[in-house]
């Protein structure tokens, strides 16, 4: 066993043409933790993982995995990590089991051991029935699970998961979360990237918020939420038709801008003075607006992101896409 952090990175830089995809990223991940790297599409999450996992050579800066430099000792680093990429790194043409056998053998297992271990892992990931089918016929969720299973053959102490739940249905996503928690219980360190703020909040002990190649905030989920400083009001109107009236009331009483989340017709607004809630409730009663739900909470990571970067995750996404088109 080794003491010290699982990952230490200082000033990592990767430039594609004129695009500074990763622009001086520092990270420190302690052993046994889930570390979340949170950022919109195009923020540089995959590029950062690629450099930490020896797939890309950093142009500047340095990174050590359990004390081993990723550039000087790539082979040592590869013995310590498992990588589950954003896009399934498995062979579509052959079966799930054949994939596992090839990976197992490349890791130094005998054919028989590789097969036994492969079957075992496929079974625990609910893929036993599909073991002999070509991966090309797997669903997206099955592919993800196979990909993750492939990364666990050597039971690596450090696991990189690049957007492990993007595109998964809620149930499968919940299962993936359970797997990640199980891995950490077994002593693994996990670095995961995500675009979902609630995912980082749920899983990660510490979070780095990354935007346009830079870490713009780092800390525990609570610390990040604390950065916004104020509390946040959330309410849901019983009759959706009255939502706009409610928004007007909120804005008048609290003096801040309220936003309506489209999917659940929930109204949220930042608050400077929680005392005002009483005034608001009275106003709503006067106007005959009935509420299903009301709460005052610490701000969500969405709001944190807005506060830190000055733009929402969505607009960062579009900005990155514009850059891609221009590039």
């Amino acid at each position, binding site marked *: 066993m080794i003491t010290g952090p699982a990952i230490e990175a200082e000033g990592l830089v990767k430039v594609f043409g004129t695009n500074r995809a990763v622009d001086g990223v520092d990270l420190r991940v302690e052993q046994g933790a889930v570390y979340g790297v949170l950022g919109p599409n195009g923020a540089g999450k995959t590029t950062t993982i690629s450099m930490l996992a020896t797939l890309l050579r950093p142009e500047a800066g340095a990174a050590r995995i359990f004390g081993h430099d990723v550039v000087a000792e790539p082979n040592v680093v590869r*013995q310590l990590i498992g990588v589950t990429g954003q896009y399934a790194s498995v062979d*579509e*043409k052959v079966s799930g089991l054949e994939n596992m056998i*090839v990976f197992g053998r490349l890791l130094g297992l005998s054919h028989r051991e590789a097969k036994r271990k492969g079957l075992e892992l496929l079974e625990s990931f609910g893929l036993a029935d599909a073991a002999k089918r070509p991966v090309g016929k797997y669903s997206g969720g099955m592919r993800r699970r196979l990909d993750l299973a492939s990364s666990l053959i050597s*039971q690596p102490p450090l696991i990189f998961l690049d957007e492990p739940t993007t595109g998964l249905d809620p149930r499968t996503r919940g*299962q993936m979360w*359970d797997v990640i928690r199980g891995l950490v219980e*077994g002593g693994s360190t996990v670095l995961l990237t995500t675009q979902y703020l609630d995912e980082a909040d749920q899983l990660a002990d510490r979070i780095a918020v990354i935007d346009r190649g830079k870490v713009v905030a780092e800390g525990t989920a609570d610390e990040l939420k604390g950065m916004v400083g104020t509390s946040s009001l959330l309410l849901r109107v019983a009759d959706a038709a009255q939502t706009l009236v409610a928004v007007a009331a909120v804005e008048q009483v609290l003096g801040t801008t309220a936003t309506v989340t489209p999917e659940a017709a929930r109204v949220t607004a930042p608050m400077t003075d929680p005392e005002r809630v009483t005034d608001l409730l009275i106003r709503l009663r006067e106007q005959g607006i009935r509420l299903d739900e009301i709460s005052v909470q610490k701000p969500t990571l969405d709001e944190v992101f807005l506060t830190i970067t000055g733009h929402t995750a969505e607009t960062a996404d579009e900005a990155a896409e514009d850059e891609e088109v221009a590039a």
Partner: protein
Amino acid sequence: MTALIETRPAVFPTQLTKHIGLRDTVSQTFTMAYRALIRLRRTPEQWADVLLMPFIFTFMFAFLFGGAIAGSVSDYLPALIPAIIVQGVVQASVVTGTQLREDMDTGVFDRFRSLPMARIAPLAGALMTDTIRYAAITALTMLVGALIGWRPGGGWGIVLAGLLVIVTAWAVSWIWALLGVTARTAGTVQGIAMLIMMPLTFFSNAFVPTSTLPDWLRPVADANPVSHLITAVRELTISGTVGWDVLWTLIGAVVIVAVFAPLTVRAYIRKA
């Protein structure tokens, strides 16, 4: 799927190795060759054409040109079968490059790159499996030839001819491997390869005696390495003679490998 997935505890490797030894490199190369074999089995459509070519070309050329060039089909076969074998195998060697490009573009290569394995293994494994294709084409063409009346008198020379063809094709496939590693798409590899292959296989002694060619073209066709290989295979199959052309061909193969293997490996490692 069960609700709860069992995961195993992490294992910190007791022994960390900085470099990959020769034994591991060889065993990983065999694993990659094994993978290529499974893929072959899973994608029969990808090599159906390779197996059909010997039939189509042998029939086409034998019955189309046999009478005109050699007087009769059976008189033409001793010269034709070696030409079909060489042409088929050399054409098939291009697939090394296109498949390598396609393979490197798929996500699974990212996993290979993240495993503690020799960087060269995927390349070496692919080239190893390709020799099976060359052997299949050689054997099939000989079989088709025998069916329509090819009766070579070379004895063991026939086996030597087969081996010579496979070794040469393997050497040539390094050229396409370099293209495959450096080109942007598999289509590019195919296009460039065809541009080189067409003149090389046809401006040779493959289908017509070079004595029938115009003066300016004859020296070109005679110097063409494909002509040397075809002549070597003809002599070996017809009479079992190991002539100078065998030597020239082997020297050519060694030169190709000496030049292209290091270039390919360097380009590949830089990319991988």
